[in-house]
């Protein structure tokens, strides 16, 4: 239907309302740009006093060994403040990677059940449960991990630290699980019914159809969900702040205490003088984190759009 036939002309209030709505419409573009500008505006000032090399490590004199050694540490309160991002990267990765693996395995399994096996009734019951799970505040998940699960895991795996990257990863995977399931299920349900019918007509069992027809067709959508989940896991703050022990170590051990980028900002920004090198260093960490998640989000967005276009044709 062509609405231009019935359009009124020369109505000032209509024009004004449309312009006001337009302003609201650009608000989200404006906000994301402002976040960009203000994070980087503060972050870039770190380089007035620091060098890019400081972000990797610093040569400092070690009185114990009696010589200068190269130290990769985040040590903001010290005679020689050190702002190496390496331990924070280690921490973020050691939490986000296991969390993504756990929630991807569980999430894809759950999505297969929801999309291919469950009856409509079961699905109607499960979907709201997922929403309620997604609605648990992260500080509550963090608290449960800290107060209950951490001790349980320490006894189970016999680890040195009660709070470690693995405890954080399990908590984060709970927070990421709902979005992972939702996207993976959407991707599988977008696979045309005809493909399943063709596979069954050739004599394949239900699971052969799922393995060889549904999953390969939905793989781009599922991987977009995993990428998005990884981004969310990197950005999770309260759970890791409460459950990972907050020790900035360069380590590859998931059962060691770690400090992630997010937890580092949350733990230190409250007690820092505005305009100091430390303050700018924290904004720099924020800018790096924002860049990571922005790229991951954008990437999965592109993959999802491509998939939708392909399946519509």
């Amino acid at each position, binding site marked *: 239907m062509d609405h231009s036939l019935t359009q009124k002309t020369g109505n000032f209030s209509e024009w004004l309302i449309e312009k006001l709505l337009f302003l609201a419409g650009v608000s989200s573009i404006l906000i994301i740009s402002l976040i960009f500008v203000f*994070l980087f505006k*503060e972050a870039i000032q770190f380089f007035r006093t620091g060098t890019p090399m400081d972000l990797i490590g610093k040569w400092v004199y070690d009185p114990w060994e009696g010589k200068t050694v190269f130290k990769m540490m985040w040590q903001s309160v010290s005679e020689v403040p050190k702002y190496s991002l390496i331990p924070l990267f280690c921490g973020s990765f050691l939490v986000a990677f296991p969390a993504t693996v756990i929630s991807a395995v569980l999430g894809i399994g*759950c999505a297969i059940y929801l999309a291919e*096996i469950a009856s409509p009734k079961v699905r109607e019951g499960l979907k709201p449960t997922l929403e*309620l799970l997604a609605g648990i505040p992260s500080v509550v998940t963090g608290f449960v991990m800290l107060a209950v699960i951490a001790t349980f895991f320490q006894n189970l795996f016999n680890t040195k630290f009660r709070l470690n990257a693995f405890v954080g990863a399990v908590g984060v995977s709970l927070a990421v699980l709902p979005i992972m399931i939702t996207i993976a299920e959407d991707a599988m349900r977008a696979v045309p019914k005809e493909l399943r019918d063709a596979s069954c007509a050739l004599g394949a069992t239900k*699971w052969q159809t799922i393995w060889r027809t549904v999953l390969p067709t939905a793989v781009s959508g599922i991987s977009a969900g995993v990428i*998005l989940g990884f981004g969310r896991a990197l950005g999770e703050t309260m759970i890791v*702040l*409460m459950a990972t022990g907050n020790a900035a170590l360069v380590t590859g051990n998931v059962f060691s205490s770690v400090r992630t980028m997010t937890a580092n900002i949350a733990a230190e920004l409250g007690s820092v003088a505005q305009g100091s090198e430390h303050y700018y260093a924290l904004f720099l960490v924020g800018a790096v984190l*924002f860049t990571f998640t922005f790229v991951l989000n954008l990437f999965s967005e592109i993959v999802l759009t491509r998939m939708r276009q392909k399946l519509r044709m």
Partner: protein
Amino acid sequence: MAQAIPLRISQLIKPQACLEDIFLDILVRVFAFIPIGALSFVLFMIIQKGAGTITWQFLTQSPLDGMTHGGIFPCIFGTLAITLLMILMALPLGVAAAIYLVEFAGQGLFFRVTRAAVNNLAGVPSIVFGLFGVGFFILFIGRNLDKVIQTGLLFGQPCMLWAAATLAVLVLPVIIVSTEEALNTVPQSQRSASLALGATKWQTIWNVVLPQARGGILTGAILSISRGAGETAPILFTGCAYFLPRLPVVKLWGVVPMINPFDQFMELSYHIFIMATQSLDAVKTLPIQYGTTLVLIALTFLLNLTAVLFRIHFRKQMGTAGVQ
């Protein structure tokens, strides 16, 4: 052609299930049970350990003796106050943005860029919103307002106004997406009918489209209130107080009590965080921690449940309307 076949082929042919299939069938059922199990475990744990703490005193008193005794009333008040301020800021902006996107923007480049911006905003880490709140709201807008209107240090400090603004930015995508969804369920034919009767575009939106989308918009608002009430990281540096002996209330003209947006405040989720990690004696205050968690999760869980039930009801209503 496919519609002519009464049964799906996959329903006609039933190959014999092998052991591997049975195993996988059971495995995904176990996987599907895990979200339910996790949800029940968290709820059960907190109700079991927190229920004993919940008394009338706990809900109506201030914390006492260095926060080792007493209640959490200031936190409950702070949470309600900040979510109220937040929704007052976010709802008009989000709904207006969604109206523009659905009714005016078309499907062109502008629509796609905004779509990407909204999705990206939803994925920004919550701590980054906290940094943004400090860098933009407090230091840029606040400090410059103070300079321009000579108010001393009023706007340029952490307070409820900026904490609410930061949360409003965080929940904006939730409101935009659910409003858009609601607007899209209103049939195009009704818009055409209204326009054909001589209504202007805005009259059509105001009188025909919005009343029908009310349910969906309300669902989005409830979801975002629950989200805002549960977030901690964005308000860590934008206005939360460890302990505040008074409520953030100001008396207008000395009589009418009103939320004071220029005051700091205590908040439920922040209270849980500091009690669990920075309290003087974390073991002794454990009952307070569980009690506070129970209050917070009861609040968010009830809000979410309302939204979920509301949406199911709303979708059913739209479904039957479509049939008639």
